[in-house]
């Protein structure tokens, strides 16, 4: 029985060790602010994989040697959940990055953020794209530093091989016809799709709302109909990978485009940085270009949608003033330059920044690509209100049913309206 006693003692010792402290922590050491420096904490997601943060922090530290920025690194997947939990516990992180406007509205409406009208005024209200989203009855609780919007990526080689012109000033009908024409099956049996629609509902709904000038939280969704018919037509004719397969196989849009499996792809500008990196690393040799999103009307005007990313100051911030100074820098010209250098689209969009952007190594420099970069109007992907999250959920579920063909377009749209009205708007 001695062994048992020994085992029990060993257990007790381990247990004791366990409670004496974080003896086992073995990751990289905690960065400590140097003597006399202000340590500014900023919540970020996926620090290693999102180089814009490092670019901003390095730039700011170089300009302000008395500040040490410490990123609070949170996983991208459940970023809002973690931030919410931390804030509930009274967390004192200085700057909070707003991943999307829905979370922003929640934090701002609940008094978790400081008003920063002063910062916004200094940067210049008219200069910041997407600023409207943050306007809450004249008060701003965050300032955007980055603005992504949607455009059409296309594979120049596949276009050339099919002998068709670049996708210039397309309407949705022309786009559909073009996608069908570009769909081929290669000699090796490998299928090339004319286009690839990712499974996000925005591909259908947000673009439709933007080009029809409608509000997605209204509870009336008749205007989605044309766009759904287009999407389903593409899917039925095999010109795009069908939704069910894409969803269940967790198809990666990057794989589709970078391996030449699709000739066109509507996608956000965030992918520019990704594709530049992939080409630089030799992971793909796709010959790509940018075009404006296909349009509802053929009046030559380009309307697309996008969503801003912003910095805000925590109500419980330790260094409120330093935090505001940082945001002013990051949303302003200096910050814009720093992130456009790595292919990220800044919210501050003037000609100087845009020119610098197209000088990036590997960027397509043709006129069409440049035109794609200056849409006439960029609507907000999803309006900001306290109903946005709940509406988003309902629209997602019904989008799913329409796209797998369980519900007809009209039934699905009717159900969306009915559910949003009863579950969200309380009518």
């Amino acid at each position, binding site marked *: 029985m001695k062994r048992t006693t020994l085992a029990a003692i060993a257990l007790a010792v381990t*247990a004791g060790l366990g*409670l004496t402290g974080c003896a086992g922590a073995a990751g990289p*050491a905690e960065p400590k602010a140097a003597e006399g420096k202000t340590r500014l904490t900023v919540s970020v997601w996926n620090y290693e994989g999102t180089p814009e943060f490092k670019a901003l922090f390095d730039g700011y530290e170089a300009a302000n040697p008395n500040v040490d920025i410490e990123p609070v690194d949170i996983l991208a997947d459940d970023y809002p959940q973690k931030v919410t939990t931390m804030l509930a516990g*009274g967390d004192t992180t200085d700057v909070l990055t707003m991943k999307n406007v829905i979370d922003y509205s929640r934090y701002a409406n609940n008094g978790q953020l400081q008003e920063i009208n002063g910062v916004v005024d200094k940067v210049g209200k008219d200069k910041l794209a997407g600023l409207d989203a943050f306007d809450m009855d004249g008060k701003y609780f965050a300032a955007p530093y980055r603005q992504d919007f949607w455009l059409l990526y296309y594979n120049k080689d596949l276009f050339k091989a099919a002998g068709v012109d670049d996708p210039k000033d397309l309407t949705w009908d022309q786009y559909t016809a073009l996608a069908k024409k570009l769909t081929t099956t290669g000699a090796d049996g490998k299928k090339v799709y004319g286009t690839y629609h990712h499974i996000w509902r925005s591909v259908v709904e947000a673009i439709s709302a933007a080009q029809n000038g409608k509000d997605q939280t209204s509870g009336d969704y008749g205007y989605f109909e044309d766009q759904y018919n287009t999407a389903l037509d593409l899917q039925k004719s095999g010109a795009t990978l069908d939704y069910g397969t894409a969803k269940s196989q967790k198809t990666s849009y990057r794989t589709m485009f970078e391996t030449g499996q699709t000739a066109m792809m509507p996608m956000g500008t965030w992918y520019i940085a990704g594709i530049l990196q992939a080409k630089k690393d030799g992971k793909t040799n796709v010959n790509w270009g940018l075009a404006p999103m296909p349009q509802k009307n053929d009046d030559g005007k380009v309307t697309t949608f996008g969503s801003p990313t912003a910095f805000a100051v925590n109500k419980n911030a330790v260094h409120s003033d330093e935090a505001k100074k940082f945001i002013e820098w990051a949303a302003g010209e200096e910050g814009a330059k720093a992130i456009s250098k790595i292919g990220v689209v800044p919210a501050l969009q003037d000609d100087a920044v845009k020119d610098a952007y197209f000088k990036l190594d590997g960027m397509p420099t043709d006129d069409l690509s440049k035109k794609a970069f200056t849409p006439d109007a960029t609507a907000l992907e999803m309006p900001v209100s306290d109903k946005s999250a709940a509406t988003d959920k309902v629209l997602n579920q019904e989008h799913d049913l329409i796209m797998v063909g369980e519900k007809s377009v009209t039934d699905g749209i009717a159900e969306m309206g009915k559910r949003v009205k009863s579950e969200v708007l309380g009518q």
Partner: protein
Amino acid sequence: MTNMAEDLKAEAPFLGTRITEAAEDRRRTDRKRSPREQKKRTANVIIYGVLVVLVVALMVPFIWMLSSSLKENNQVLTVPIQWIPSEFVWSNYTDIWTRIPMMGYLQNSLYLAVVITCLQVLTGSLAAYGFSKVRFPGRDVLFLCYIGTIAVPWQAYMVPQYIMMQQLGLTNSFNALILLQAFGAFGVFLMRQYYMTIPDELCEAARIDGLSEYGIWARVILPLSKPALASLALLTFVNTWNDYMGPFIYLTSNRLWTVQLGLRSFVGQFDAEYAMIMTGSVISVIPILIIFLIGQRYFIQGIATSGMKG
């Protein structure tokens, strides 16, 4: 035949707990059955056949994982599935150690899993003795209370719990997770159920021999419950090792991160590096395999109650 198990238990006179002696007994009885050996051998062949088919069916997703870990990232999620990489990217297995501090993450995971498992096994088996072999008022209600809380999803109370931990100053440390997970009801419940199968006559005889209750737990019950201890340790280890949400909420500093958090850091806002995730997942399975191979040796019939032999 009403209930043979219990009838026999009642009949079996208690002799002692000399385990080795009994095991030898068994070996002797095994040897003398040579006419049956033939039959047994054919049975074994059939069993092997069944097992091999089964194993293949169970391993398919793991094989996909392995194959994905040897691909370029943009070759992983293809339609249709490509089982054999067009080009084997062995460098994934060397890159991952520099892309993220994988070694540190492994150490953190190991530390957490070992401490939590030890505490869970120790306190769980103690409490289980109280719940199964000692009778006192309110015992069963308290026990149901334990089981009841298992039924509440963590998502429902993680925020109140976090606020409490924050006030105690325990967030962003291993201690928070250890305290949360080491005293769960799972271990108590598992061990209690196992102790119920150990005949009370054993405890009774030990009492007559003059052992205290603690002595009975340490010298009679614990040695007899090795298979249950092994399975509790194994399952607790695996669950702690694979836990994502707990460490995600409680460990903020990168230096405290576990493997599961480290692997999720390959998931970006709009896309994910699945090749790296699969590489890391394959690596993180290895410690579990080692623990399992050690633990499963305790699942050998005949050790537990061979002392009962009359």
